[in-house]
């Protein structure tokens, strides 16, 4: 979906040679907007991450500087939150993939002969988008609360100790991340599986491959573009999320992720350089992971 849409290889070949003045006029407003409100802010963020406090100044007053120390300080204090963010996001992405693949396969391949059923099920997949992200997460908080049905049940069968909780744990945060990003995973998977030629699967069976081998050697490679965009669309927002891990939602102070640290430093503590340094670290790690991942999975023409 989103991430494969910029694979413009085929489009470039088709594009006729026309006066590029018109192209310039068409591109200029939007590109200028992105330069002003995407690129320039990133540069501001980099500049901010090197700032130093004003001597004898108020809290939140900083001046231009070249403080590499900000990065060292930020990492010294928050490295567990950075690790946790990527760990939680990784687990949530794998879980979302495992949960979504059969859904997408059923809707995209098995339900092909019933278009109405297909579109009904797709509507149900995207239905969570239509209710506020925050409310969805709060609903799970209530359902998993100590008085809620799940905790009562788990305690009655002694899976959870009598003084145990579900909310505020790593479990509930990863659960929330997984739940919230399942539609982001399912849609791109569906988009590629929907175009999967089932005769390849038949061919696998005809050549005496077991269903598992056919799935592994044929279905998975053919749906790779969907897997790549789905995992990126899940992993990136999950790594930067701070709603699920927030104390008022599914988390507690022991589940804080790097996003929580960025929010607290920027909006509460007014420690802008630390918040900026953490943002740059988050962004850099994500870009490195995305770069390696895209290269490894053989979909280099994403952009």
């Amino acid at each position, binding site marked *: *979906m*989103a991430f494969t849409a910029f*694979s*413009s290889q085929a*489009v470039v070949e088709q594009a*006729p*040679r*026309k006066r590029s003045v*018109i192209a310039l006029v*068409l*591109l200029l*407003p*939007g590109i200028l907007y992105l*330069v002003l*409100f*995407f690129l320039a*802010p*990133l540069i*501001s*963020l980099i*500049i*901010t991450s090197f700032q130093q406090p004003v001597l004898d100044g108020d809290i939140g007053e900083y001046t231009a500087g070249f403080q590499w120390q900000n990065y060292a300080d930020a990492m010294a204090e928050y490295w567990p939150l950075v690790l946790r963010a990527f760990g939680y996001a990784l687990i949530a992405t794998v879980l979302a993939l495992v949960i979504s693949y*059969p859904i997408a396969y*059923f809707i995209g391949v*098995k339900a092909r002969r019933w278009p109405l059923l297909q*579109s009904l*099920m797709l*509507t*149900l*997949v995207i*239905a969570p*988008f239509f*209710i*506020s992200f925050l*409310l*969805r997460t709060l*609903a*799970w908080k209530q*359902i998993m*609360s100590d008085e809620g049905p799940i905790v009562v049940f788990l305690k009655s069968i002694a899976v959870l100790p009598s003084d145990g909780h579900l909310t505020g744990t790593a479990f509930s945060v990863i659960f929330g991340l997984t*739940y919230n990003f399942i539609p982001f995973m399912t849609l791109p998977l569906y988009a*590629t599986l929907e175009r999967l030629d*089932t*005769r390849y699967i038949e061919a696998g*069976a005809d050549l005496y491959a077991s269903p598992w081998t056919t799935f592994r050697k044929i279905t998975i490679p*053919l*749906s790779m*573009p969907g897997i790549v965009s789905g995992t*990126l669309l899940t992993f990136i927002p999950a790594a*930067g*999320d701070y*709603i699920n891990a927030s104390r*008022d939602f599914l988390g507690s102070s022991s589940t804080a992720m790097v996003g929580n640290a960025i*929010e607290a430093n*920027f909006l509460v503590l007014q420690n802008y350089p630390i918040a900026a340094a953490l943002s740059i670290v*988050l962004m850099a790690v*994500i870009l490195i992971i995305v770069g390696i991942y895209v290269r490894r999975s053989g*979909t280099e023409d*994403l*952009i």
Partner: protein
Amino acid sequence: MTSAVPAKAFEQASFEPSPASRRRFRMRGIGLPIYTVLALLFLLIPIAYTFVFSFNDSGKLNIAWQGFTLEKWLTVCNTQGLCEAFGNSILVGVIATVIATALGTLIAIALVRYRFRARSAISLLLFLPMATPEVVLGAGLAAQFLTIGAEKGLVTIILAHTMFCISFVVVTVKARVASLDPALEEAGRDLYGSPTQVFWRITFPLLLPGIAAAALLSFALSFDDFIITNFNSGAVDTFPKFIYIAAARGIPAQVNVIASAVFLLAIVIVVVAQVSRAARAKRLARQS
């Protein structure tokens, strides 16, 4: 891309499985459909919860079930600041959508139709906002507004939302532009249509479904955005920000009312769009 070649080669072919394999597929049991239904029901749990608790006869805290009432639906705006925040969300969503859709559509047309230098740099610039975590986008803009001393408020929220919507508009409209037959526009020019006439009478109506989809997506992204808004809103509340602040002390049931109403409206729009698309497909099939 690994699958590009076979997918293209078989594009024209029918995907109908042979009778033998159809039998085999059916034999494979009912595990997958049952799983899918259960998974879809699981996705709906928080929605059902939110909807049911909009009818809860609760006090300030809407946690335990206290009995059915329609009162919250009738007194939505009695909650301090709620309807104002909701109005702000609509306002921001509409303005950001209009700007982002206009800018993004122009870019999409240029990307498909024209050759120009720095194409890969521009593609990268369009891709990066989608690959950047929202918290970084939000902090970056906030740092920028701080540097230039801009007061945070509705304007900064709109500027921020427009920014992250543009790339999604480009992606959505681009697919539509690519599928548009240039011969139709040539015909318009052959009939002495001016470039403006050709655009508004031919290109624009043909692109409209894609543009409408992009606009809906933009509005949905803007309306539900919290993270970027939180960094750039100052004292102004949007609907998600109202929820975030209220979450610390308990969400009033009126919030569930608004969310449920928005949900129902969105579902109606989606269903109407799908039914009309199905009807159009049927009509076209009958004509050919």
